[in-house]
Structures are given as structure tokens and as C-alpha cells.
């Protein structure tokens, strides 16, 4: 059965645009091997690379901060996210309370920092689930081909036909609420995209002339897969993982906003925005600041992913 244009195009768009597959490796005569391989020199070069890209440097800094908040929240704030001072309630942003305080006088910055733990862990889990199962499916599909490939790809087409958010909602209905279930549901929605990209990459590399050359030199299937196919196929898949990070932050916070994440009063980024809705007219910071944090995180993640993608493309 031939695929319909719409489905195929959907799939094409779902993957990152790596612009490859047309001609395979291109000559790049100007790229010379590094003159010196000392780690000091490499560090200097990395610093220079970042200095020429201040946006990228800022993005990396921001992501690092967010990750520190997620895994070591006490390094950034010593306050308790659940205890507030009623006298201090609904204060706007100030030097004491950077993001202001909520209706119970809890410091919003502290709640954001602690919220990062659940939100980001869910994001990381979601991407990991999508990457691991998607890449495995794509690898099997692309390398073995035939009937296995046909069945897997049919399922992938199907998964791509249902909007990610609806698929996640259906899974949450079946799995129940909570941060881990939200993460699993979001991860499951990205499996199809990962499988697609991995399969496409494996197919691209598998049909490359240098792979046939390896076969004609007497390489076995497993040797071809490990030495020639995998090293060339994993780049775009990792780029997709980087891009998927931003998407997953958005999806996790949307589901949390809808109230399917952790139960109150545990803070999550999405639920913090949702909590602030009641005071939308009077306390703007309660919705604005958490939202801005999500936006900044997603933008930073996408910037890093793009840099990664650019390097990836240069390297082929």
C-alpha cells in the first residue's frame, strides 16, 4: 500500500530538518584535523566558539541553572516552597521576592525552583522514554526491513495521525494522574517521531555506497551495523532528542496546567500558572513569571538544539 502524501509529509515534518540523504557525505576540503589535541586548547576553542555566539552561551547558562534547580533546588533557594507568611501575601516582584508572592504569602521564586524538580524530571523522563523506545523501533525497522518494517511503520503512521496532546490525554485517562504518568504519556507521544528519524537515518546509511563497500570487503551484518551504520545514524536522532526537550517541557507544563500532574500543594510549572489564574486581574506576576520561565527554558533548549544540529550538519 502506498502512503498518502499527507501522511508522509506529516512524518517528514515531524523529524528535524537535517537536509541530508540527498548526496551523502560531501567533500569538505577546508576542514583540517585539529592541529593540537591538548584539552586546554580545546577548551579555549570552545570558549571562543561561545563568545562568538552570545545567545547560545546565555542559553546554555540558563539551561544549566534550570537543571541545577531541578536536581539541587536548595543551592538556589533556602526557603520552604510550601510555607508562606500571610503578611507578605500577594506582593509584587521585589528584591526580597524576585517573582513576588502568592495568596498565601509563599515566595513564587522558591516555588518555581522547587517546581523545576518535578517539571524537569518529567521532561527528562519523557525524552528518555521516547528516545529509547523510538530509536530501538526505528533501528529494528530500518535494519531488518521487510514485514517487520511494514508493521512498525504502519503503527508509527497511525500514532502520527493522532495529535500528540490528545494521545497523551488518552494515555493519562488510562494510566491515571501524577507527574510520572504525565511523563510517560508525553514520552509515548514522541516514540513515533524518534522511530521515523532513526529508521530514515539507518536506511540512508545502510544504502550508502561505503556500506556496500564494507559488505563486499567481507563484513558481517553485525559488523556493518556497529561499525558503519550506527556511528552515522545517531547524530540526527540526538538532534531530535534535543529539539524534543523543548516540546516536552511545553507538553508537560500544559498537562500540569490542565491539572493532571502532581496533586496540590506540590508546585509544578504548569500548575503554578493555573493557580495564578484566579488573581489574573490583580496579581499579574503569578501567571506571568512562571510562564516566562517556561518560555525562556524552551527557547534556550531550542537554541542549543539548533547549534547541535548545525554542528551535526557541518560534520558530515
Amino acid at each position, binding site marked *: 500500500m502506498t502512503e498518502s502524501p499527507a501522511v508522509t509529509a506529516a512524518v517528514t515534518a515531524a523529524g528535524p530538518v537535517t537536509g541530508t540523504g540527498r548526496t551523502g557525505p560531501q567533500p569538505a576540503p577546508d576542514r583540517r584535523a585539529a592541529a593540537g589535541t591538548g584539552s586546554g586548547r580545546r577548551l579555549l576553542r570552545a570558549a571562543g566558539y561561545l563568545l562568538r555566539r552570545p545567545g547560545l552561551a546565555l542559553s546554555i547558562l540558563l539551561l544549566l541553572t534550570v537543571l541545577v534547580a531541578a536536581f539541587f533546588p536548595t543551592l538556589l533557594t533556602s526557603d520552604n516552597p510550601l510555607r508562606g507568611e500571610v503578611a507578605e501575601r500577594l506582593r509584587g516582584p521585589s528584591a526580597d521576592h524576585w517573582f513576588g508572592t502568592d495568596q498565601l504569602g509563599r515566595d513564587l521564586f522558591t516555588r518555581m525552583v522547587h517546581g523545576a524538580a518535578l517539571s524537569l524530571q518529567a521532561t527528562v523522563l519523557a525524552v528518555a522514554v521516547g528516545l529509547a523506545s523510538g530509536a530501538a523501533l526505528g533501528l529494528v525497522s530500518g535494519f531488518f526491513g521487510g514485514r517487520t518494517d511494514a508493521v512498525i511503520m504502519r503503527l508509527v503512521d497511525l500514532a502520527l495521525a493522532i495529535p500528540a496532546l490528545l494521545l497523551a490525554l*488518552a494515555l493519562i*485517562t488510562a494510566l491515571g494522574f501524577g507527574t510520572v504518568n504525565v511523563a510517560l504519556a508525553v514520552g509515548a507521544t514522541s516514540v513515533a517521531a524518534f522511530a521515523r528519524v532513526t529508521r530514515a537515518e539507518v536506511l540512508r546509511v545502510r544504502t550508502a555506497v561505503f556500506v556496500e563497500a564494507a559488505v563486499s570487503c567481507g563484513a558481517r551484518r553485525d559488523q556493518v551495523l556497529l561499525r558503519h551504520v550506527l556511528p552515522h545514524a545517531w547524530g540526527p536522532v540526538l538532534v531530535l532528542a534535543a529539539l524534543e526537550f523543548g516540546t516536552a517541557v511545553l507538553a508537560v507544563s*500544559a498537562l500540569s496546567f490542565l491539572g493532571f500532574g502532581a496533586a496540590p500543594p506540590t508546585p509544578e510549572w504548569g500548575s503554578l500558572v493555573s493557580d495564578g489564574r484566579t488573581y489574573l486581574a490583580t496579581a499579574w506576576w503569578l*501567571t506571568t513569571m512562571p510562564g516566562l520561565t517556561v518560555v525562556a527554558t524552551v*527557547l534556550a533548549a531550542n537554541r542549543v538544539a539548533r547549534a547541535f544540529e548545525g554542528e551535526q550538519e557541518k560534520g558530515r
Partner: protein
Amino acid sequence: MTRYLVRRFLQALFVLWSAYTVCFAVLYLLPSDPVSLMVSAGSEQSMVDDAQVEALRAQYGLDRPVTVQYVDHLWHALRGDFGVSVQSGRDVTRVFLDVLPATLELAAAAFALALLLGLGLAYWGTYARRSWIRQTLLSIPPFWASLPTFWVGLMLVQLVSFRWGLLPATGNEGTRSLLLPAVTLALPTAAGIAQVFARSLRATETEHYITTAAAKGASPRRVHLRHSARNAALPALTLAGVWAGNLLAGSVVVETVFSRTGVGRTTATAVGTQDIPVVLGLVILSSLLFTVVNLAVDLTYPLLDPRILGSAATHPLKARAR
């Protein structure tokens, strides 16, 4: 041509059937079933004894073997009967039909807006004379795509409704109340359209037929509109099904933010109460939408891209990649 139509139609049916099957499997085979979910969800009156649970299960036909349930559900679904909402006891089809018009209105407005914004941004972002205009315009879509929809809605309400008092913040009444939700819903889709269209416009720039056209003495506008845009629109068109689905999915968030009645809000409530028949109904609705839009695209595609029929099995995008 007839063969093409028949094939596409059969494919559409296949997609619908498999979507139904997979969702049925996920929702009915996972450890939780509608009754136990219902019993645990209504936490206050959860003092239900096992006998009552069994009675309920029998009432919903859940005590039968899974295959029998599947065939039974599929048979009913084929006739437009998706069962009864566990929460309200109302017919699922009825539940959706009641709120569908409001959502369609919202989605149509959002789609028109997204198309206008997306195509316009991409076209001017690619062909504007000054490079800083191009760069600014083209940096907008990725930015839009990074914004959480729920937050954009709230920011719009905060500024436009509360601070400036221009438009109502919530509700379903009239065009004025439609504007903010439509903008909110349109942004991600507009970003998608703009990115795809700009990318394909850029891809046509190095195509040799563009050089041929320029060598005929054609003006830049003629080259852009008749040769570049015409070819670049095709990949964007094939994504219409995805965007229709995304608009429906986006309505879940947007209708919640703006407290509008509609399919999305119904869904959010159904997920909140773990009302499985309603959720299953929505998934079917969305795959129906996707399938119908894709079928429409597939049927109009040969009119726009002559290659699709000429080489029956070759897909235009694949053919181009060769």
C-alpha cells in the same frame, strides 16, 4: 483516477479502523477499566461494595471476553454509537454533537488566521528586500512555537481584557469573544505553516527551474509567485491534516483558559473524571478529522501536482529527494 480515489478511500478507512483499535486496546486493556476508575474517581461516594462493582461491570458489558467487547463496540461505533458517558450517562455522540459547532467555529477562525499569518510571514520573510526585515520576520515563527498556549491565552486576557478592557475574557457570546481564543489557538499553527512554507520557499531558490524562469526575463515577483510559491505550497498543503488535528487538540487548552464550551473543554473534563467512553470518542473524532482532511488533500493534490498521477507509485516528496 478512479483507482487512485478508491485506494485513498480504503486507506482512510484503514487509518480510522486502526486508530479505533489501538485506542480501544490502550483504554480497555490497561489494568484500569471504566468501572473501577469511576468508582475510585468519585472519591466521596466510593463506599461501593464488590457486588455493586460486579453489577456495574455487567451493566457496561465489561464481564464479557475482551474480543467480544471489541467486536461489539466496533459494531456500534460503525453506526455512530460510541457508548454512554460514565459520568453524565448521556450518549457520547450526543455529547460531542452538542458542543461541536462552537469548536468548529473557533477552529475555523483560528485556521484562517493561521493561514494568513503563516503564509504572509514566510513570504515576506523570504523575499523582503532588506535583510534585517527578513531576519526579524523569520525569527518570529520559532519564537511562537516556543510559547505555551495556555500562557499566551492568559497574557492576552490579562492585557486586552483586564488592563485595556477591549474584549471579553471568557464565554461563547459573539464574534468579540471569539477573537482572543482564535488568536491563541492560531499562533502555534501559524508558526508551523510559516516554518514549513519558508523552508520550501528557500529550497526552491536553488532549483534550476527558477534560473530558467529568471533567464526568460521574468520579474522577481513573477518568479516568486508563479514558480517558487506554487511549488513550495505543495509540502505545506500535505500538512493540513496535521494542523487540523493540532487545532482540535489545542482547543482542549484554549477552551479551558477562556472557559468556552466546546469539544476541548468537554475532553478536559472527561479526562479529569476518567470518563473513558468520552475520551475514546474524542480520539475517534480527531482521527476522523485527520482522515477527512487528508482525504480532501489527497483528492485535490493531483490537480496541483501533476506528478502524483503520472507516476502512480512515486510520491512527489520522495521523488524530489532522489
